[in-house]
Structures are given as C-alpha cells and as structure tokens.
C-alpha cells in the first residue's frame, strides 16, 4: 500500500528555525484556548514558556508533537507541517520527545525496559544496541543501579528522570517538557532540573512549560509569557525578569516572585 503523499516541504537546514509557530488557534468546543500564538525556535535554544494556569502554554507545546490538533494556523517542525491531515505522526514524534508532569511511565516495565520499549517496538531497532544505549541514558540521568526497578519502586524524581531517558532513547532533535517538576517534592525538583540543564547545555533544543522562575532565568535563552491564549511578551531572561514591559507580566511576576 502506498503511503499517503505528504505535502513535500523544502529540506530543513540548521540555520532556519527548527520550530515555527504561526498564528496558531485552538478551540475545545466553543472554548478558545489559543488565540493566535506565534514563535520561532532556533536549534539548540532553551525556551521557557510561563504564565498563569489555563493560559494555553501546555496546549501550545502539545500541538507541537500533534498530541493536540490545531484548529487554525501553522506549526512546522524542521519544515514539516504539523497541521496536515496526511501528517506522518511517527516521523514527527521521532524528532520531538516529550516529558509529562505525571511521568507516565509504563508501570508494568522496569526502568530499563521503559527506556528500551519504544526504540524496539516503534523503530524496530536492534535490541542489543538499544539496551546499551538505554544503560548509557540511565547513567546520564544518574540512575545506574535502578535499571531493574519498576516505576512503583522509584521516587517521583527518579521516575521523571527515567521518563527523560525514555524520551531521549528515541534520539529526538527537540525535547518538550510539560510542567515536569510540578508534581515533585521541592528536594527532588532539583535533580530533575539538573538533568534538563545538562541537556540544554549539550545543545538539545528544549521547550519547557514551567513555574520554576529561577531555573527559567538561569537556563532559558528566551522566555515567553502567555496569558488567556496569547503571547503577552517575550524576551531574553534578564530583560524579561528585570524589565517586564506588559502590565500583565508585571502582575504575574509580582504574584509569583
């Protein structure tokens, strides 16, 4: 069977934005969550998206790997249009890894198996090679020795790091982090943030929806502030935190800092 012909796009080169969001709208029924958001993300950038609850920040990054369809507008990932009925979701999701607030590990598999599953089942890669990579990834997130533990035997912070390793096992070009520390104890937040910071410093393109302002300030290359479905303002972190321009940003930062 011939695969449906996807709209051919010009080959992506690293000097172009790796993600291009153009005037994206999203409605759930009559409720408009995204009311025209746009942003460009360059390869290797760490982007933090902050804003009050319900402002659409999680929905926005969920649109980037097609977990949520967009109603209007365009998102391209390495020039591949996400808002395309013939979208090859697997091709997109190989490029874009995602980590969730609730870790969402597969509870019937050990830490090592969680990391190995998708490359073996989805990408049909060689088991031995994947296993070596999985060991290396667990080492990278400092979980050597926990390979054979089930998620139920790990702490929240450990589970979240397994989830990061699981995502990295697909060798994505971009990582999306959806409030990944929101469900963690204050002590374990740090261990997860250290892992993400390392990734960002290694040049992984990272988009984080987060409430960790200090982390955002230290790690982000650029900060986006969303409210009620629109991007209110965006700037490099120093400018954003020290000199916010919009009244809504000032109010938000005043409440949170």
């Amino acid at each position, binding site marked *: 069977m011939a695969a449906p012909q996807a709209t051919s796009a010009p080959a992506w080169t690293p000097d172009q934005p790796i993600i291009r969001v153009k005037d994206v709208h999203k409605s759930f029924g009559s409720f408009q969550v995204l009311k025209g958001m746009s942003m460009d993300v360059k390869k290797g950038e760490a982007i933090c998206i902050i804003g009050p609850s319900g402002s659409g920040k999680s929905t926005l990054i969920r649109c980037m790997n097609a977990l949520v369809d967009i109603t209007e507008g365009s998102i391209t990932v390495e020039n591949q249009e996400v808002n395309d009925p013939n979208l090859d979701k697997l091709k997109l999701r*190989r490029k874009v890894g995602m980590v969730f607030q609730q870790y*969402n590990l597969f509870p019937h598999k050990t830490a090592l198996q969680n990391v190995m599953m998708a490359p073996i089942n989805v990408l049909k890669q060689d088991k031995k090679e994947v296993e070596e990579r999985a060991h290396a990834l667990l080492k990278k997130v400092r979980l050597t020795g926990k390979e054979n533990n089930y998620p139920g035997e790990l702490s929240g912070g450990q589970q979240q790091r397994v989830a990061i390793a699981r995502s990295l096992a697909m060798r994505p070009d971009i990582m999306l982090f959806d409030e990944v520390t929101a469900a963690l104890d204050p002590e374990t937040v740090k261990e997860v943030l250290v892992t993400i910071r390392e990734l960002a410093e290694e040049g992984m393109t990272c988009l984080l929806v987060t409430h960790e302002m200090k982390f955002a300030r230290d790690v982000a290359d650029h900060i986006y502030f969303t409210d009620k479905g629109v991007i209110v303002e965006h700037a490099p972190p120093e400018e954003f935190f020290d000199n916010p321009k919009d009244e809504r940003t000032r109010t938000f930062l005043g409440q949170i800092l």
Partner: protein
Amino acid sequence: MACDVASVDAIQSVGCWILDNTGVNLTILHDEFDRNRFISGIGMTIYLSVVSLFFSLIIGVVGAWAQGSDFRVVRWLINGFIVLFRNTPPLVQIFFFYFGISNLLPYIEDADGMRAPLLTNVQWAIFSLSLFAGAFNIEIFRSGIEAVPNSTKEAAAALGYTRLGTYIHIVLPLAIRVCLPALNNNLVNLLKTTSLAYAIAVPELLYASKNIWTDAQNVPTMMVVLLLTYVALVGVLVWAMNAWERSMAVPGYGQGGGR
C-alpha cells in the same frame, strides 16, 4: 453381586474392595468400560474448556479493541453482539446454533458417503461457548482498558506508538492485570457451562456420567463423583489462573496503589 470380573489392576481392586465392604458401587473404578467412558468424558470437558477458553479470550481481546474503534458501525456491531449473547441463556444459544443455524447451512458428505452437517456437535458446542464467554470477556477487558489512564496512552503516542501498538504493548498488559479477577470468574463459569453441551449429545463429563448411572443404577454415587470432579477441574483452572496472576504481579502496581 460384587465385582464379577477378575481384578486386573490396582484401581479395579480398590473399586471392588469398596463395593464389597461398603456397598458403594463405583463402576468407574472396577468396570473398565465405565472407567474409559468417564475418563473420555473428563477429556472432552477439558477439550471443550481449553479450546473455548482460547477462542473466548481472542474474541475478548479483539472485541475490546474494536469497541474503541473510530467507526461507529464497528462499535454498534460489537455492542449488538454483546447484548445478544449476554441477554440469552447459554443453553438457548447452543440450541440456536445446533438446531437452528446448523440446519440452514449446507450439508457435506462424510467419509462413509453419508450426509453430515458442516460442523459436528462438538464443533458447534465450542463455537457457541466461545461466543458466550467471549461476549463477557469483551466487557471484562473493556473494564481493564478503561482503567488504563489516558495519560499513559498519551505518553505512548508521544513516543510514536500507533493506536494498535499502544494497545498491544501497553494497554492490554496493564488491562489484563486489572481485570484478571473478573476474567478468572468468567473462565470458571465457562468451564462449568461446558456441561450444557450435554444437551446436544456431546460426550462430555455430565453426558458420560449420565450414561454410567443409567447403566449401573448408581445415581447418588455418580452425583457425588460428578460434583467432586467439577470441583477438582475448576480447582486446577483457578490454581493456574492464580499462578498466572502472581507471575504478572508488578511491584508497586495493581495492589491498590493505582499509580
């Protein structure tokens, strides 16, 4: 009259001894013909159970998958099937297939050139029992599938799994763990329901026992034997299911932790 055959093996001697000393007539022990009928009855009950169990599980797994289909027609068909087989007695179903459907199907010639139905009574029993238990299995698997959080499926989707891949590798293994107790009950019920195949002359345990007690006039004895034999058969099934459940236990999951 006690045993009128010369004892040839230990079991026969035991049967004769019981008969001589207690008057309990266990022909299935001291009479070789009855013993063989009884054993082949047990064999047929096990055969019906295992084969129907296998097909009913397949129906359950596939049906539960199809129930989540994007096509409304498919969902309607599955739900119609469940209603039909859950709302009718299994004996009526067996009769429906054996006397109803079987007569509508073309006949074939058997090895002796005789006109024979397309499916034998044993095959119809398996067909009917599989559908009966399968309808319940679909509902049981569905309950397990619904217990798998959407967020887990979303994580699988984000890793590039298709809906089918997610079902096979993530949803089903988790769902089975959740629904094993209910599945256990239904499979026990299936094993016991095989006794209804009696009604279409399938020589299973009940049918064989009836033949024995009509010939040997030992009705009360055979009733006890029959009852205990079913207790033992179900006991083996439950033991196997429990062993399966233990082998799938995952530390920190499914013991009420519900993470």
